[in-house]
């Protein structure tokens, strides 16, 4: 199939349809509403389920229900809506049923704004809901990659009976970009043996997240943890750019990673040996590759559209082997390639030991830039 010019949210929704999603339940919120609108126009005519729910709380529980019925089910929302979904997400994780949640992140906390952000890193990657569980998190940076991520998300969700988050930001939701959609997949007739479909000719299935005896809950927690260890072993995805001879390692995901790659191209033109590691799976994080790279590079620059959340994970892995620096924009601000280029140049010239919390040095730099932009 040829590439077409596709709008992010529409393309992601169509990708889900082609991946065989049988139920979409959602609630309008900018900047993810086009996802819901697109589903409302497409799913009923395909004989698949669509409900605009009364809230995100309800939407995620509808997803939970359809997932328990063994169907490919998903929702899409944006930060405040995702906060409301956390209860259901935790139940889905605890019940070990597959489901896909797309978060088109916006500025926060609170109502924040509708501009692109990566401020939900902690909420998405660290769990967000209550209890011991480990979501898989995909963070595509291009429309094409997001299209591919949606089908992968369903496959992973089913393979591990896990919740899978696909996180993008408003830039990607609204972006028009040439991309190719996969062919329409036939909906699998196979019913998972755990699904509730009516106990016809078999013992009843029950799906629940309650384990009243702590002994049983602990065994469940352990099962989830061991499954997560498998996921960490098998499912890490990342993109590398100009890393072969890199001395300065830039790490960024999603839009921030994409902007960083433009900056790296320019830095290379100026003779700075910079390269990019862009995690596509934020959870599991490309930890092994990062450890390898700490033996190669001189300095690391983490670039995010938040206050340095992935930064904490990077620091934990790097363990002080290489100085780590940080540059972030927050509140719905997207860094420009020039800003990151300035940072790469600064980092390349910096011979200092690096600080315990790279944010300490970043805050005054950001304040200066904000004044300069005024």
């Amino acid at each position, binding site marked *: 199939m040829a590439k077409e010019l596709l709008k992010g949210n529409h393309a992601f929704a169509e990708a889900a349809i082609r991946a065989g999603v049988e*139920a979409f339940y959602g609630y309008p919120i900018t900047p993810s509403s086009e996802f819901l609108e697109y589903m409302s126009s497409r799913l009923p005519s395909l004989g698949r389920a669509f409900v605009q729910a009364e809230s995100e709380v309800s*939407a995620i529980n509808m997803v939970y*229900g*359809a997932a328990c*019925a063994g169907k490919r089910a998903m929702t899409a929302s944006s930060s405040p809506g995702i906060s409301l979904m956390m209860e259901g997400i935790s139940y889905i994780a605890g*019940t070990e049923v597959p489901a896909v949640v797309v978060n088109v992140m916006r500025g926060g906390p609170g109502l924040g704004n509708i501009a692109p952000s990566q401020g939900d890193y902690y909420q998405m990657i660290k769990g967000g809901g209550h209890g011991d569980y480990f979501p898989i998190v995909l963070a595509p940076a291009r429309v094409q990659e997001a299209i591919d991520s949606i089908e992968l998300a369903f496959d992973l969700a089913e393979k591990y009976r896990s919740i899978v988050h696909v996180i993008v930001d408003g830039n990607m939701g609204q972006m028009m970009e040439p991309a190719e959609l996969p062919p329409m997949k036939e909906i699998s007739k196979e019913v998972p043996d755990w699904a509730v479909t*009516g106990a016809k000719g078999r013992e*009843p299935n029950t799906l*629940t997240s309650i384990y009243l005896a702590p002994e049983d809950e602990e065994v469940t927690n352990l099962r989830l943890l061991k499954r997560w260890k498998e996921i960490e072993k098998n499912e890490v995805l990342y993109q590398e750019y100009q890393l072969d001879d890199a001395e300065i390692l830039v790490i960024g995901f999603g839009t921030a990673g994409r902007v960083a790659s433009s900056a790296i191209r320019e830095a290379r033109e100026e003779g700075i040996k910079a390269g990019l590691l862009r995690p596509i799976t934020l959870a599991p994080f490309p930890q092994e590759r990062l450890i390898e790279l700490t033996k190669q590079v001189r300095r690391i620059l983490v670039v995010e559209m938040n206050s340095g959340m992935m930064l904490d994970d990077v620091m934990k892995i790097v363990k002080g082997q290489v100085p780590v620096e940080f540059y972030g924009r927050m509140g719905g601000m997207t860094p420009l390639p020039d800003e990151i280029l300035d940072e790469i140049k600064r980092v390349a010239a910096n011979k200092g030991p690096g600080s315990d919390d790279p944010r300490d040095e970043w805050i005054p730099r950001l304040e200066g830039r904000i004044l300069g932009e005024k």
Partner: protein
Amino acid sequence: MVSTTAEVVYQRPESFTDVHTHYCPGCTHGIAHRLIAEVIDEMGLREKTIGVAPVGCSVFAYKYFKMDFVEAPHGRAPAMATGIKRVLPENTVFTYQGDGDLASIGMAEIMHAAARGENITVIFINNAIYGMTGGQMAPTTLPGMKTTSSPFGRDVELTGHPIRMAEILAIMDGSGYIVRRSLHNAANIRKSKKAIRLAFEAQERGLGFSMVELLSSCPTNWKISVRDSMEFIADKMIPVFPLGDYKVSPSLEGLKV
């Protein structure tokens, strides 16, 4: 001489498992469970039914029914049931919810399931109290009634008034069968069973949202005897929650069950 044989007048429903329930003695959750199981047996629905258990004393309902079951977050059973019914429209889907679950934390979910006319059946246990958490005030607690969180009796000036769900849900255009019954004696239990039957009949006929509210006992948290709790339902609850048919789809009228 006339010889005789033994005829079984009543036996445990097939849709029940062989499990001893965790309910307190005299709690009518068990009666409601039994009536549902009997109706499902009579209608031959067991193998296509999916139950949705709530958070509340009946959180373990799935252990007692020999059928597929899921267990929803507190109040979200109608949303989960919606999610299931929309992808499995040929199956019979019911929720089983207490008053805290349905009329407090799950108010949005129940109202909108009714408004959408979701073709599901809701069995609503109104015992005027939060049973599972130890007897706190519920949205259905009677004026003046003492609970662990209204120790001086429910003061409607401060804590509002009991919510009458059957009346509210009956005015939703999407509902097809909405009634209130009571479980305090044999005659009313018979009527309750009939209502549950009609609610499932409504679903099988695609008549939209159906709900049976059942006035129920909680002797443990009401802190009275089982016998007194049945009197409490008759004397105190029914005046606040009048029994009756609040909405019966014309397609159900005259149906003999």
